């Protein structure tokens, strides 16, 4: 097996001949790493995952998982991967145990193997006590864990997790992260996950690709991406309604200035020393600084840097995302 477990080349999906959900995406995932697809809702994450797990056919380009083509050798791919979908797909009318056995049957795992393995997995995700209860009675966290267990029933070489902590509260999210880390350690799997939580990508992923509007904007380790920003970020607002970009740029150590609706995003080395100099420079010209913040780079800054908008969506963009998502869902035929 090559070291590249997943490889996508020019992978593209167009819905209804007009909606480009994924636009000529290239990436590769190495053996044993956790690779994260980070992007806002509607960026094309789920569409990409659905192509990799052979549920959707790419419009253009190709992708392979463990050396098998996702279209031509779809069945070989399916046998070797596990999928933890975004939705709670377990059947509510069945018990947790019955759900896992159902998954096992779909893979054609012999019953004597699957019964034993189901109990092991239920133990792993701490659902043993609830295995004979109907999924209807499960909480969100329990359902998510059950999905994890279902996704692992065929001992997959690659596990795909689509928004594994979507809709979970903070504690449950942290617990889920622990499970994911443990899985990677115990089974030595390669994990491909999508998320729109920056902390999640930062905490879990070995490498991240930031995706927006169907395109990969940047790929790297969280560390590389943060380093790539080349310094701290200073954000300044002034009282006056004037463009002071040039003034700020003239200050020593300032590398880059961006005016974003009256707030200036300044990239600078040694931010804690540069910030007072900027205030000084502005005051000399008669401007009053009303707000200042200094941040060491986080993925949020990386995200902002590359997509030009904050990850935490404003109300307005949230609406846009929702409508985009609805269109996508409709196009996917949901």
């Amino acid at each position, binding site marked *: *097996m090559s070291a590249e477990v997943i490889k996508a080349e020019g992978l593209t999906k167009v819905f209804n001949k007009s909606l480009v959900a994924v636009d000529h995406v290239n990436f590769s995932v190495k053996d044993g790493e956790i690779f994260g697809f980070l992007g806002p809702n509607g960026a094309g994450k789920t569409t990409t995952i*659905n192509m990799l*797990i*052979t*549920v*959707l*056919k790419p419009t253009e380009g190709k992708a392979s998982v*463990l050396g098998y083509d996702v279209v031509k050798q779809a*069945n*070989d791919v*399916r*046998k*070797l*991967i596990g*999928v933890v*979908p*975004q*939705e*709670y*797909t377990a*059947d509510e*009318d*069945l018990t947790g145990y*019955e759900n896992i056995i*159902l*998954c096992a*049957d*779909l*893979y*054609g*795992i*012999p019953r004597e193997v699957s019964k034993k393995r189901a109990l092991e997995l239920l133990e792993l995700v701490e659902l043993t006590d609830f295995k004979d209860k*109907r999924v209807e009675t499960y909480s969100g966290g329990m359902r998510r864990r059950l999905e994890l267990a*279902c996704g692992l029933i*065929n*001992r997959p*070489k690659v596990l*795909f997790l689509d928004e594994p902590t979507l809709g979970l509260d903070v504690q449950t999210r942290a617990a889920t992260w622990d499970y994911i880390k443990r899985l990677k350690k115990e089974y030595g799997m390669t994990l491909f996950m999508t998320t729109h939580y920056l902390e999640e990508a930062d905490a879990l992923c070995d490498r991240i690709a930031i995706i927006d509007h169907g395109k990969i904007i940047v790929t790297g380790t969280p560390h590389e991406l943060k380093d790539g920003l080349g310094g701290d970020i200073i954000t300044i607002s002034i009282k006056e309604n004037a463009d002071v970009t040039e003034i700020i740029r003239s200050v020593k150590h300032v590398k880059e200035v961006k005016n974003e609706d009256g707030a200036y995003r300044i990239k600078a080395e040694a931010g804690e020393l540069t910030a007072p100099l900027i205030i000084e420079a502005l005051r000399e010209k008669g401007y009053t600084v009303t707000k200042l913040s200094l941040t060491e780079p986080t993925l949020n800054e990386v995200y902002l840097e590359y997509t030009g908008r904050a990850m935490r969506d404003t109300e307005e963009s949230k609406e846009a995302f929702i409508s985009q998502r609805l269109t996508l869902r*409709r196009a996917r*035929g*949901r």
Partner: protein
Amino acid sequence: MSGANEYKPSLIRGLWALTVRELKKWLKDPVMVLMLVLQPLIWMGLLGKSMNIGALFTSGNLENMNIPNMTIPGTLVIPNVDGNVTIHGAVISQMLQQMFSNIGTNVMENAFGVADYFSYMAVGMISMIVMTTTMFSGMSIVWDRRLGFLDKVLSTPVPRGAIIFAKVLNATLRAMFQATIILALAYILGLRLSSTFTLFNLLGIYAAIFLLGVGLSSIFIAFSLRSTRMERPMQIISLVMMPLMFASNTFFPIKLMPDWMQAIAQVNPLSYVTDAVRQLTILPLDSSALIIDFAYLGIFAAVLASIGIVLSWRYLTK
């Protein structure tokens, strides 16, 4: 590479697993079973029992008729008499009553084939329950898709055919079970079986139900797969159900319908299921009619299942 051939996902295994899932879901929702049985039961109990068509032709319906004295030419009576003959109204009335007291059964047997309307329409309820059950259970695929279950199943190596066949099989099995309940209820409520009925005939009934179920559910599943809203299949069900019921021999014999309606009833698969089930239960078995019924149902099932499965297949492998 290890693992790739470790497991053997097979059509039968997957079909069985997915069908068992559906049946488990079904058994855990007895209310749904009850609701679907209730509708034909109400039809049967109220319409079947009240529409006592045979009773229309009984002497009781001629009481209080004031029939005047009637004068007819004497040449009409035997032996011929010169001049006119007058018959008392009361005599005519009595004669009519005598004639009518036996005519009801004859009319029923000539038009409906059986003496009581209840038996006639109760059997028709079997095709009704098969239709509603197959359509409603085919609809569950809309939920499977919306809840992401379908995508999850599609990401496993289970043969795609198993996904579709499981739905068809589930719908058909449910229909057969529901039909059994209806038949049992009809029997309790007074269905009169013909002398040619044997328990062996039940196999024929199930075969007819199976064919209708497979045909209807395949096409309905294909349709449900493509409809993004739960409401669509519902609307189709309510739109399609009544016309199919009434333009068939479910309630009334085809030969008494207007021509245009006869044309519909002749191609309506419900007519053939109902006729087959009637042949096997309440009518003296006419094997040539039964062969035609099954030939038609076989073709119907084969054509609709092929269309439905091809459409679903295309959708699932898009």
